[in-house]
């Protein structure tokens, strides 16, 4: 395939993915807006008003970046894992496998689908948050970079989960038992400074800590971790996940016999 043909194939996958989640927007975009509104009301307004300041900001301002990032992580992951596993389940993935579309284009197409859904949900949640608090952006480039890196990383992770999944139950195990706990323990609702030294050290093994804090830095200008280290770790995880996805596609593991 020449570069124009590859671009056409890539755009076909992206168009299909975007149309898929837009067609079922009540299942893909709306739930995050409702869930985050509840978080804002309960943790931000009701409980947050009694907590006072955290990191020099109102509790509502403190939790908003983490909640936006939580929506990006879960949506980019969910989009790729459900879409690619669905294609595996109904065998329509064979439409791609028999075509001359290179494996990296297949991967980029699905990841772009996950990233765009993550971005769309992030915009929706940010708009909802403006009903509850005032936000200013400390560093827009950090915000953009961290959002793109994070949604890419979790789209890739969703792809890996989809390749290994044998049933629809398998695609909910990781989000339920891994992603959600790591997100809740990733400093969305509290500062690392509040934890005893031991648990603060343990928390630093959680990759979501770097995601949440890097994004919080971009929005509020405060962070519990070094920005350079956070970006370095994210880039490393993303690189490893990308090459592992390519390995799965190139060997045809669980996709070809």
């Amino acid at each position, binding site marked *: *395939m*020449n570069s*124009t*043909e*590859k671009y*056409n*194939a890539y*755009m*076909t*996958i992206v*168009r*299909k993915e975007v149309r898929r989640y837009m067609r079922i927007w009540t299942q893909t975009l709306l739930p995050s807006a409702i869930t985050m509104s509840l978080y804002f009301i309960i943790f931000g307004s009701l409980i947050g008003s009694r907590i006072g300041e955290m990191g020099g900001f109102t509790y509502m301002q403190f939790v908003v970046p983490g909640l936006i990032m939580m929506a990006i992580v879960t949506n980019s992951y969910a989009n790729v894992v459900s879409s690619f596993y*669905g*294609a595996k389940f*109904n*065998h*329509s993935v*064979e*439409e*791609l*496998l*028999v*075509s*001359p*579309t*290179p494996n990296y284009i297949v991967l980029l197409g699905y990841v772009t689908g996950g990233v765009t859904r993550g971005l769309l949900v992030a915009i929706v949640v940010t708009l909802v948050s403006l009903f509850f608090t005032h936000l200013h952006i400390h560093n827009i480039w950090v915000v953009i970079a961290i959002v793109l890196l994070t949604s890419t990383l979790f789209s890739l992770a969703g792809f890996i989960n989809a390749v290994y999944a044998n049933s629809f139950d398998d695609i909910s195990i990781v989000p339920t038992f891994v992603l959600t706990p790591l997100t809740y323990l990733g400093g969305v609702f509290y500062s690392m400074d509040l934890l005893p030294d031991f648990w603060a050290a343990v928390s630093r093994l959680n990759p979501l800590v770097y995601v949440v804090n890097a994004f919080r830095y971009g929005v509020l200008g405060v962070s519990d971790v070094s920005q350079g280290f956070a970006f370095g770790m994210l880039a490393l995880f993303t690189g490893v996940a990308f090459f592992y996805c390519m390995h799965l596609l190139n060997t*045809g593991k669980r996709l*070809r*016999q």
Partner: protein
Amino acid sequence: MLPALTIENLTKTYDNGFQALKGISLTVAQGDFYALLGPNGAGKSTTIGILCSLVNKSAGRVQVFDADIDVDFPAAKKYIGIVPQEFNFNIFEKPFDIIANQGGYYGMPRALAEERAEKYLKALGIWDKRDTPSRALSGGMKRRLMIARALVHEPKLLILDEPTAGVDIEMRRSMWEFLKRINAEGTTIILTTHYLEEAEALCRHVGIINHGEIVENTSIRELLRQLQREVFILDCVDALPADFAIEGFVTRRMDDHCLEVEVEKGQAINQVFASLDRQGVQIASMRNRANRLEEMFVKLVEGAA
């Protein structure tokens, strides 16, 4: 002229140790209509899976026109259109989108892919269903949708894995006509089927595969020539005489108006009619008892078992 397909010593051993292909070799000429026949589990679908990259081969060489799959699989894939045995499209998508997307996967610009989707949905007679969710299509329509999808990039080699399974007679006939037409227009076709009359009606050459080995690879005409015996059923205008017999032929009286006659290789069927004429028996119609190719197929497969 390069063959459309060349397979040399192709083997496939699955992870569980089952050897599905034991070094098969075959060649399909450009423009041919080729039947790949064999009982269930013989290795037909494995062979097709390797051609379209859904199955990784263990050893051997496959070349599609000028493209060796080990050297340039994407080029080989461009030559091939595949209609699989099982439905493998998203049942929530509409036929038009399924076909246009497939065009995109082959690198076609959207406008061209949509143009081709319209062309082939119309050619297969399902244009009026273009916006119906594909889960709502009948079995025959789903089969035709998969044929239209396989043709969107206008492949030079079309491979159909049991395309008429579960399709009613009228629709099967219309699919035969369509396949004959595109074959006449230059598309090489490889067909697997369990309906041997289908292979006999459509194909010029046949490969019979059994237990992962090619047991026959020849023209349909040559294969049928190997038949030693044919059985004809004759329907008579009036009731047969009680002492009826045809000298030199084994006959069976099915009822008063129906007769079976066995004709061995080398015997002339004219003798049968001459004898019938002498005895004043008028024949209304005549047909083969069983599909001739089926008889040969059973013989070859049982012989190799």
